[in-house]
């Protein structure tokens, strides 16, 4: 952990070498997701509700997915740009260091410009949390925290799968973006609005709904079962196949060039 903080400070120092670039990128990140927010706002002001969810409720959803994704991207960026790491031989370097590989990839890159999105998500929460009409008891707060933390981990697991593919292709696979970036975009609305098939897929195969739709129902008091509250934890099971796939990829690794 101490070492991770060291890496953290190195990355922070590096990125602060280019201050203008840093702030403009962060601003850009903020603006891009801000337009998405406007989209949600106009949609909701026209229709008042989508599949039985009001604006405030949708915004809770939006904030959760945005924050979870941004955290995952900020710290798991190393896996997101992993094909590049293989391509330029940096990964060979990681292999000759006496530390776990996952740790090294994780600490190879940190993207602090994502602070733009994090801020956005925080603003959204500032509005939606009081406006949603939810009575914020201990269990509800815990549920929201679980949604965000487990959400980041599920997104992170997706990055891991994405990275593992590049052991075979030596190039990234853009189709994985449907699940990562796509998950973020579509996750602005509760997944139930996309129909039963999509919801099933996002429950049993790629468990994005487990930290978004089900616990949201609990938050809103529409379901009271403890399973709904703890469903984000079940989503963590996704890490197991993701990690196994990563290990498998690693064992098949062939390096590039000299």
């Amino acid at each position: 952990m101490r070492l991770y903080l060291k890496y953290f400070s190195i990355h922070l120092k590096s990125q602060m070498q280019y201050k203008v670039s840093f702030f403009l990128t962060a601003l850009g990140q903020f603006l891009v997701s801000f337009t998405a927010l406007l989209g949600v706002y106009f949609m909701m002001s026209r229709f008042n509700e989508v599949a039985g969810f009001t604006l405030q409720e949708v915004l809770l959803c939006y904030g959760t997915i945005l924050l979870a994704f941004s955290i995952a991207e900020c710290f798991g960026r190393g896996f997101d740009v992993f094909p590049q790491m293989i391509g330029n031989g940096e990964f060979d370097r990681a292999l000759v260091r006496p530390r776990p590989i996952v740790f090294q990839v994780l600490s190879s890159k940190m993207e602090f410009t994502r602070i733009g999105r994090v801020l956005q998500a925080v603003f959204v929460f500032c509005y939606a949390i009081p406006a949603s009409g939810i009575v914020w008891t201990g269990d509800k707060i815990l549920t929201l925290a679980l949604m965000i933390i487990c959400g980041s981990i599920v997104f992170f697991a997706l990055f891991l799968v994405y990275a593992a593919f590049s052991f075979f292709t030596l190039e990234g696979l853009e189709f994985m973006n449907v699940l990562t970036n796509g998950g973020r975009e579509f996750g602005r609305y509760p997944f139930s609005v996309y129909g039963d098939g999509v919801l099933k897929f996002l429950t049993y195969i790629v468990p994005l709904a487990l930290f978004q739709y089900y616990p949201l129902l609990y938050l809103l008091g529409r379901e009271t079962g403890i399973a709904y509250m703890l469903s984000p934890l079940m989503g963590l099971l996704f890490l197991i196949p993701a990690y196994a796939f990563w290990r498998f990829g690693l064992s098949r690794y062939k390096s590039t060039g000299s």
Partner: protein
Amino acid sequence: MIALQNINKTFRVAKRQAGFGNAVKALFSREYEMVHALNDVSFTIRDGEMVGYIGPNGAGKSTTIKIMCGVLNPDNGVCTIDGRIPWKERVAHVREIGVVFGQRSQLWWDVPVIDSFELIRDIYKVDEKLYKQNLDELSALLDLSEILKTPARSLSLGQRMRCEIAASLLHSPKTLFLDEPTIGLDAVSKIAVRQFIKKLNAERGTTVILTTHDMQDIEALTERILLIGKGRILLDGSLAELKKRSSERKTLVVEYSGSMPTMCEGMTLAESREGRLIVALDPAVLPVSDAITKLAAQTELLDVSVSDITAEEMVAALYREYRI
């Protein structure tokens, strides 16, 4: 001690012809070619040895180095380094080795070199006292004290390379792998790096394995040479032995004024320019003194120099001999 026994490594490489049509075709069906990067490679290197590992591009040098570093695992064969199998006990193994890939940096680009060094110290969990001692020693030997506070991106290539070498030695590794350490360096930096490596080997007893295309590196540094070509170890011996083996030929550089002399048996004309000849000579057929006498009889000699075959020529001759 490093021991490789019957190591094989094959890569599957997709191949296709040039052109757009073939590129489209390759999307659907691909032909693969098996490239035998390493073919039954065996050798042992004792502790404290300094070995030059040479061969033309694509001969399998980097693959061998990567196997010894634990980056790649071979298809079959045994490789043990200090009793460990590199790719199986990766973490324990890499703690004992230092690696410099000449073309790739291990320094963090945007921060001062010293920050990179401290991070490496933490990665390897180097004891503070040892780190201090190594850092002092390395910065004195490699003349780093001035540049430690500079970000790696503003260093010249020579400065960067010295930092790279220092970075790979901070944890006092037993074995050092140098993959083209002098590539792109100017003469002064090259000499500094060579001297340092020599000293390191002599004083710390570090085993050094060096790949290079620069024959002066080999000449200056290593006693022993491993020649690899097309994935096979072709030669394993000392530089002196090799020189002897690759014929006793001498090179004569002759400057003359007057008519151009003709060659006789035992002499081959290698290069001829106005007033200057380079002649390859086989002393077994024609002794050097006789050759000079013969030349002097035909024209007026201004200057004659006799030299042994250079390492460069010798390696070129070896490559030719083995058709690699």
